[in-house]
């Protein structure tokens, strides 16, 4: 349904999204997870045809977002991050107008409107001015306009941001239910939220996709390993790697491919390696001991931050719903 191939988007000289590719299949609910400023909103704006990509191809339902923008927009329901509402209209008037500009005729609107109002449970507020609604009800009005015209694809940008905990729970339920009928791309910076709603998670950071997995597998990967950078003198590469692999808590050891040959020459006889060890194993200590026992020289022993872990540190991994 949504297919993104090597898409990049820059605002002037500033890259917001860099060469991302992914596909959302029909009926899938995909969570788009990343810290603020990672490129979630930008990607969603490209998918919805609001802004064209700087580079790459994006298609929705087989239509290209640049060349067939109107066809794309006809098939998409979009809830932007700041819920766009006309505060001086009633809920019903607002939704009717939204339906009309999506090309719904009056009998379709008449038929569909009560169902949608019922679905998002706005019944008792349907004649209230949007400006008088609480944040949670505004959010529901926003969701209602996104699903009103029965779009194939739903794109929701941070649908639970800034609403109170009880309403968050309700909104999530609502979104989960919508997922049964729609293909959905949903963004969030809250890990548990995505885990609760989505069956697949894309993690985006600094404009790049760094993980694409089921929510469960993702958490497992997080606890995967401790990574250490080691520089050693006097050891042949295979000998060092074997010695490391003999240590019980070491998962893997390999030459550090990030260091170029010129840099290697500068470092003279010190060879760079990467060692992955089980967490909490005091790996650095054991590695140092092994190196010295073998009579090699040690010049560097640095724990490396795991990229994914680093990203997750920036994410909200816990939430307090005050229950």
């Amino acid at each position: 349904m949504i297919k993104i191939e090597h898409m990049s988007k820059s605002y002037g000289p500033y890259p917001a999204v860099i060469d991302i590719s992914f596909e959302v299949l029909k009926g899938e609910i995909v969570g788009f997870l990343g810290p603020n400023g990672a490129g979630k909103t930008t990607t969603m704006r490209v998918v919805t045809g609001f802004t064209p990509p700087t580079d790459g191809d994006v298609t929705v339902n087989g239509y290209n977002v640049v060349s067939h923008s109107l066809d794309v927009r006809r098939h998409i329901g979009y809830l932007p991050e700041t819920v766009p509402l006309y505060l001086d209209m009633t809920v019903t008037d607002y939704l009717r107008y939204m339906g009309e500009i999506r090309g719904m005729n009056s009998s379709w609107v008449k038929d569909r409107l009560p169902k949608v109002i019922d679905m998002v449970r706005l019944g008792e507020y349907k004649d209230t001015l949007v400006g008088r609604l609480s944040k949670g009800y505004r959010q529901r009005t926003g969701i209602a306009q996104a699903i009103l015209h029965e779009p194939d694809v739903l794109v929701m940008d941070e649908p639970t941001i800034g609403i109170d905990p009880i309403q968050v729970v309700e909104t999530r339920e609502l979104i989960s239910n919508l997922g049964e009928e729609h293909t959905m791309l949903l963004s969030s910076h809250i890990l548990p939220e995505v885990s609760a709603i989505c069956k697949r998670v894309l993690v985006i950071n600094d404009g790049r996709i760094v993980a694409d997995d089921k929510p469960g597998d993702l958490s497992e990967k997080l606890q995967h390993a401790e990574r250490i950078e080691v520089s050693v003198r006097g050891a042949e590469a295979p000998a060092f790697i074997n010695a490391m692999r003999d240590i019980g808590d070491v998962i893997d050891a390999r030459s550090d491919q990030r260091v170029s040959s010129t840099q290697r020459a500068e470092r003279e006889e010190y060879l760079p390696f990467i060692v992955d060890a089980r967490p909490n194993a005091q790996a650095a200590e054991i590695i140092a001991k092994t190196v010295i026992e073998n009579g090699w020289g040690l010049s560097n022993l640095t724990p490396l931050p795991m990229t994914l872990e680093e990203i997750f540190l920036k994410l909200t991994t816990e939430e307090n719903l005050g229950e």
Partner: protein
Amino acid sequence: MRFISVIAIKEIRTYFASPMAYVVSAAFLAITGFFFVASVSDAFAVASIRGYLAGAIFFMIFMSPALTMRLIAEEQKLGTLELLLTSPLREFEIVIGKYLAALVTTLVMIGLSLYFVVVLFVYGDPDVGPLLSGLLGLVMYASATLAVGLFASSLSSNQIVGLVVGSGILTALTIIDFVSARLSGIASEVLDAFQLGASFSVFDLDSFGVAEGGHFADFARGIISLADIAYYSSITAVFLLLTVLVLEARRWR
């Protein structure tokens, strides 16, 4: 076409549901009323709407942008522009729809002021030619100023910026003859060709002037010239097109 009318109807409703249309109409009626009365109340006054027209076109420099300043700026501020631009609407449908709403509101406003004409027929014997051409000119003039106002509204999310820029452009086109009077030759003639029509001599209560070389002068005199119609139509078309371009450019940011 359907989308244009959907947007126009929504905007017209918003105009009349908010104080804006009423405030601007009231100000328009008060101001034009003053100029009308002042121009026909002398002992030997001519039964014409010249004073009314001069006052109307002068104050439209401020009233038209006041009427249009909300139209696009507010959509940007509320974020609803993002909805409009992700709906299957073309930019020109949004622009034309909103423009028509402002134009209809202005026509209602002008319509309300037409009791001046009735008064003239009851108490005097006005010349019908200049009256009709004057009203036609007023509508042409209003449509041009509204297009400028709409363009100004598209420039930022701040309504006041829209008002100031819109009135600024219209004022510049109005006082252009101050500049051209200090130039000579081609430059002066070219500038004169852009004279919008109103003049500060409106405050001269003996003449209730409109700009002599301007495009409104003939309308006020009872002459309908193609050049004047073309001028106002061009201003309208150019500024509506610019508005569409501003909206399209917004996507590429």
